[in-house]
């Protein structure tokens, strides 16, 4: 029995070590953000020479410094504009999805009427279509509504994405139908049942959709790349990679700051994230 226990601990340690290797890139970014310009230049020399030799990297820099953070936070107001762009677009998309998607998920989860299966099938198909297939359609609508090169061009199509509906649906499906029947017999209206029973009890699915949605839209690239020409409207996710290697310290700091909200949501929303992944796997 004792031997079995030991084996278990060893396997666990192995898994944890693999996990730490997987998370390595974060440590690299953090280290880079506190390295001095001279250190950075030395370490990144192979990159400048276009792939001769290998990058050497230290986990703890010899002379840690926060000079780049200072420069980023106090001398580059543009950075805040882009950070705010990311926040605003992500926030509005999630709010819109909540307003539109939650009732839709409720409709699919609770009411089995003629045609509802077919519509749900349509929603699944739409959920699985990659951006590239719907890019031209979105472009045509957005140009007709003269929304191109405004942030609404990114926000509106995302609000009607069917992916969060699927996750929220998973949460509502877990509720027993008898509960609603009982409420109906007691004379409750359908809206009342949704607001007073569905929303509080089906929170899990909604929070899953929120966590997965935040990580997705905080990271969005395809939509702003296609529909936003004006750099001042860009989200951070599109702007960051444009910073050149000559400003490496700045780029690392900006990366760390961009990481923070995502890591924050990941940590507080971990259980819902995992739940959401499992919901995404449930089907009708």
């Amino acid at each position: 029995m004792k031997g079995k226990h030991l084996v278990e601990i060893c396997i666990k340690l192995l898994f944890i070590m693999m996990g730490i290797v997987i998370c390595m890139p974060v440590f690299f970014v953090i280290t880079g953000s506190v390295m001095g310009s001279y250190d950075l230049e030395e370490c990144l020399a192979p990159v400048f020479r276009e792939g001769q030799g290998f990058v050497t990297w230290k986990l703890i820099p010899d002379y840690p410094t926060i000079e780049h953070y200072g420069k980023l936070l106090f001398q580059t107001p543009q950075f805040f504009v882009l950070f705010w762009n990311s926040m605003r677009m992500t926030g509005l998309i999630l709010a819109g999805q909540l307003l539109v998607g939650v009732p839709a998920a409720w409709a699919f989860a609770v009411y089995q009427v003629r045609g509802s299966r077919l519509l749900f099938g349509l929603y699944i198909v739409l959920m699985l279509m990659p951006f590239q297939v719907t890019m031209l359609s979105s472009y045509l609508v957005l140009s007709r509504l003269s929304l191109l090169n405004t942030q609404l061009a990114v926000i509106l199509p995302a609000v009607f994405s069917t992916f969060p509906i699927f996750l929220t649906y998973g949460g509502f499906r877990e509720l027993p139908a008898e509960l609603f029947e009982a409420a109906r017999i007691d004379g409750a209206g359908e809206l009342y049942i949704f607001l007073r029973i569905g929303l509080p009890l089906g929170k899990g699915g909604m929070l899953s959709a929120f966590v997965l949605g935040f990580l997705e839209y905080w990271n969005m690239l395809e939509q702003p790349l296609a529909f936003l020409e004006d750099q001042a409207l860009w989200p951070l996710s599109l702007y960051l990679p444009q910073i050149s290697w000559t400003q490496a310290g700045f780029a690392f700091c900006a990366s760390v700051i961009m990481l923070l909200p995502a890591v924050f949501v990941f940590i507080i929303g971990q259980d819902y994230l995992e739940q959401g992944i499992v919901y995404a796997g449930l089907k009708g």
Partner: protein
Amino acid sequence: MRRSSAIYRRKRRAFAGFLFCSLSGVTVFVLLPFLDVIKRSLTTAVTGDFIGGVNYRRVFENQAFRLAVQNTLRFTGVCIPLLVILGLAVALPLSRLRETELIKSLYLFPLALPTATVVIVWRMFFYAADFESLVVSYIWRNLGYTVVLWVAGIKGIPGEILEAARVDGAGRLQSLLRVELPNLKGSFYTIVVLSFLNSFKIYREAYLVAGSYPKQEIYLLQHLFNNWFVNLELDKLAAAAVCVGGVLFVGIMLLQYFWDRER
């Protein structure tokens, strides 16, 4: 059977009410414009004259399109089986351990990292931006949820079935092959669908590391769509969107068919 009872009518009304916003949005932003795309794929870009399948022929004869289709198929053909098998290889021992929250968090963590912030690390190590580096970064990002799904599937197998197999004298391997794997078909479909959905997002890494015109071996359909879009070659883009959309539609339908038959 006539289902015109008051309750049914009430449910139908509620269904329509709750779905209204979403369905009108989907109609305006996706369905109607896609009909427009189909129309455009059959007409000339400038004058709008009907030209039948000419755009489609131009797309199929296009060298860049062929290359992109080939590369995309190769990428998904390599990545999805690799991800599914790796995920299972991690999940099988992991599902037998207790208190695995920390391990799962570590594996899921890449999902939370914005591509823009890891690209800077990718550019340090993978400046080659070749096929292999795309595969590595895809597996790196997607392994976590694959493991979570497999573990959820394995834990969902009723204990009695495994117990029964053991009583009948099945060994470890036999029980895995004959009992566990057949019970995991649902998880398998889910994982394949989600990994496929996410395989299109590898464009983020590819684009941010290597731009619009990367090495030939990683020129994907996503690059092609984006470049045609930027160059306003909308007639070809329409035909290509209809083709790719159509192929995916058939694929999804087949998958749903098998999925439903499985139950």
